[in-house]
């Protein structure tokens, strides 16, 4: 690829920025600027996508990025990543335990009864996908009443908000392989390039900040037949993960805040251990910042696919670490697609020159030789 420097375009570029602002404010005097709080709460699933794809759990800044990008999730994630690149890294947290998550939703499609019960929580799963026309004319006073009246229905007895994991029960029954006891330093995808083969921690970190649609597309290829995972959701949970850091004075683990996380564990086909051990189910794991179930499920399926590919060699695209991990990052992919909009005048001029030369050679080859012309005349 080749580029040329742009000269004399500063006015046009400034004008393009103003044009974007004009369209953002096109409602004129009738309009109200979006507040960050409104974006964060009323467009919470959009905010969730941006915190996860930006790789930084900062819902307020994600809301700002959404506002600035006028709703473009790729641009918003890009802005969030640009912000994070300006901040110093102070520390690495100790490993956090998602069993401590304060859940708002928890389901299993593997078992009807799970310890602690299933809670649907906030979900569109069982809703009719019909337009809610009442929202088009929603009045502020009605809007403000909804949360208050819902919350008045407080439970009679306190409800637990953290629960044991379904996979722990399966593991206790010997249906899953034991957990790893030795820990290696995880791969930091923000500081190290992916040079294959990469450890599983690199795959999990890459997918945790991957673009939702990209993960879904490759996971969907596996679901439809270009794969052999056959997943069942052992547990899908959405909740707030308390982040514990050592207290600067006492060293005691202290809660520094909480992070909304979606986590999914899928049970896949069982396999016999090559060393002749008892057969056990295999598992795939997915997790991401925010509330994004499609992403967590897709990641869990791909985690299992990649584990299979890493162990036995890839049999299809979803099992190929290089194919999956190098094509799911939204900011990378968007950057490459967008760069085609930049001037490529030199390279294209070269392409045209080569085409004209080739056409000329082609035409000359088709022109009849003097001998052929003479014979045709006879």
């Amino acid at each position, binding site marked *: 690829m080749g580029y040329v420097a742009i000269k004399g375009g500063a006015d046009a570029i400034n004008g393009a920025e103003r044009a974007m602002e004009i369209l953002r404010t096109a409602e004129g005097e009738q309009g109200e600027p979006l507040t960050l709080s409104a974006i964060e709460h009323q467009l919470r699933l959009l905010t969730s996508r941006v915190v996860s794809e930006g790789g930084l759990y900062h819902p307020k800044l994600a809301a700002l990025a959404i506002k600035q990008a006028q709703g473009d999730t790729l641009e918003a994630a890009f802005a969030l990543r640009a912000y994070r690149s300006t901040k110093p890294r102070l520390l690495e947290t100790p490993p956090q335990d998602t069993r401590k998550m304060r*859940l708002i939703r928890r389901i299993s499609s593997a078992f009807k009864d799970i310890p602690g019960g299933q809670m649907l929580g906030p979900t569109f799963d069982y809703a009719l996908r019909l337009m809610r026309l009442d929202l088009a004319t929603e009045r502020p006073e009605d809007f403000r009443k909804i949360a208050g009246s819902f919350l008045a229905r407080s439970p009679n007895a306190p409800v637990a908000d953290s629960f044991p994991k379904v996979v722990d029960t399966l593991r206790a029954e010997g249906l899953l392989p034991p957990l790893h006891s030795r820990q*290696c330093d995880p791969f930091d995808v923000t500081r190290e390039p992916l040079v294959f083969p990469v450890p599983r921690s690199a795959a999990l*970190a890459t997918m945790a900040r991957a673009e939702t649609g990209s993960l879904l597309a490759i996971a969907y290829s596996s679901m439809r037949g270009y794969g052999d995972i056959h997943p069942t959701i052992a547990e899908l949970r959405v909740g707030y993960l308390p982040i514990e850091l050592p207290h600067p004075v006492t060293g005691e683990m202290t809660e520094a805040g909480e992070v909304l996380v979606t986590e999914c564990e899928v049970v896949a086909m069982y396999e016999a251990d090559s060393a002749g051990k008892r057969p056990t189910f295999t598992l795939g794991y997915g997790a991401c910042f925010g509330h994004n179930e499609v992403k967590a499920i897709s990641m869990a399926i791909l985690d299992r696919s990649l584990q299979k590919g890493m162990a036995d060699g890839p049999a299809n695209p979803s099992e190929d670490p290089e194919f999956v991990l190098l094509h799911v990052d939204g900011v990378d992919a968007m950057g490459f697609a967008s760069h085609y909009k930049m001037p490529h005048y030199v390279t294209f001029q070269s392409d045209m020159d080569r085409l004209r030369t080739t056409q000329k050679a082609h035409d000359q080859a088709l022109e009849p030789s003097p001998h052929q012309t003479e014979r045709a005349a006879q």
Partner: protein
Amino acid sequence: MPQNTHALDSLPPRSQWARFLHAANVIECLALAESFNKQFQVEDIQRPESGLALLRNRDGARGEDYFLGEIPVARAHIRLFLNGEAMAEGGAQILDDRTPLARAIAILDAVLANRLPGHEQVTQLLNQGQQHIEQQQAQRQVLLSSTLVDFSLLGNDEDDHND
């Protein structure tokens, strides 16, 4: 350094103070810390700073660690002096990017941990934050309790199908 070892039974554990103070009114938090700043001499043991933390998580399938992403962190570690004598140490690490707030919580942490004069006001702020968090928990409890589902009823009718 004199350390007050009074029993703090009525208070939540110190491991929850930063969380509760972080949930309290920020302006009141900063103002109270500023009043202690005038009352005591505050020395930064570690320069207050804000930045990012890499969030290390353990996966539920194989128990391997990986990085889920980054989170904002502000932290402070201070020591309070009165008349040149070291009185107390306090610290805070919070999921936030406001360094002054982390330093304020570290000051309040020191005052409360050592029951220094004015600690009652810190307790009030702590209670305020705790109430806020309890309200939040109550909201989440409603989300859970009102959507508790019993799928064991599935399959009792002939029309039910299991995918």
